[in-house]
């Protein structure tokens, strides 16, 4: 499944879709501790987190995840949003808690 396929499923709100939407989603990863995500987020994974700040984007960019999914209604401020656009990091959002959000992606991956 590509990032575009996930966007097209309509399950998630689009926060920023300027970026590589053709990228394949290879895995799902959940973590809010940035240095743990830094160490373990698989490249190409969809990273589900409630951390919605500039540092989330820095970690997303350095680990090469395919997209960031903000769970639990976490919101990005304007500055982080413009950084996401500038760095072309795809950001989606949902009201669901982290596990359910990840499960939604996982269910689609498995198909």
């Amino acid at each position, binding site marked *: 499944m590509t990032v575009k396929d996930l966007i097209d499923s309509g399950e998630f709100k689009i926060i920023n879709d300027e970026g590589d939407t053709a990228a394949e989603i290879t895995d799902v990863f959940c973590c809010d501790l*940035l*240095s743990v995500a*830094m160490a373990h987020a698989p490249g190409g994974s969809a990273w589900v987190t409630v951390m919605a*700040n500039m540092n989330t984007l*820095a970690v997303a960019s350095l680990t090469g995840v395919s997209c960031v999914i903000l769970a639990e209604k976490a919101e990005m401020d304007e500055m982080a949003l413009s950084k996401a656009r500038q760095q072309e990091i795809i950001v989606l959002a949902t009201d669901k808690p982290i596990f359910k959000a990840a499960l939604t992606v996982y269910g689609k991956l498995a198909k």
Partner: protein
Amino acid sequence: MNDALDSGASPENGSDEPLVLDYTVVKDDFTRAGEASGDVKKKLRMAGINPAAIRKVSICMYEGEINMVIHADGGGIRVEIYGDRVRMILKDKGPGIKDVDKAMQAGWSTASEEARNLGFGAGMGLPNMKKNSDSMDIQTVIGTGTTVTMVVNY
């Protein structure tokens, strides 16, 4: 941080002139932290360095950079890019590290509430740096500051 390149730089491997990059890191500037690592990553990519090595350098730089922002009063980072390796020298002004062995342990952290609210403070930064570098050295003076030097070979 703009003074001349440390003349003691690995003379035994000194045949190739490194590309030198200098960055300033500002205390408590959480929003800009990560810019230096992002820039280095871009330059290594342009240089055609293998992605696995770039990932290692990025992790080392970012964790070190964040530590300078949240635990110290900022400082400077010098990156030397050689034909076969990258050397990163992160030098901060700050409180220093009282017990380096403890600080190196996974899970040990003195991160502030503010830093924790931003997702830092797992106590995994230094272990990540150790794991992703081929050599790592910490020089620290209490009340003065800390210098972390890391090398990643390609």
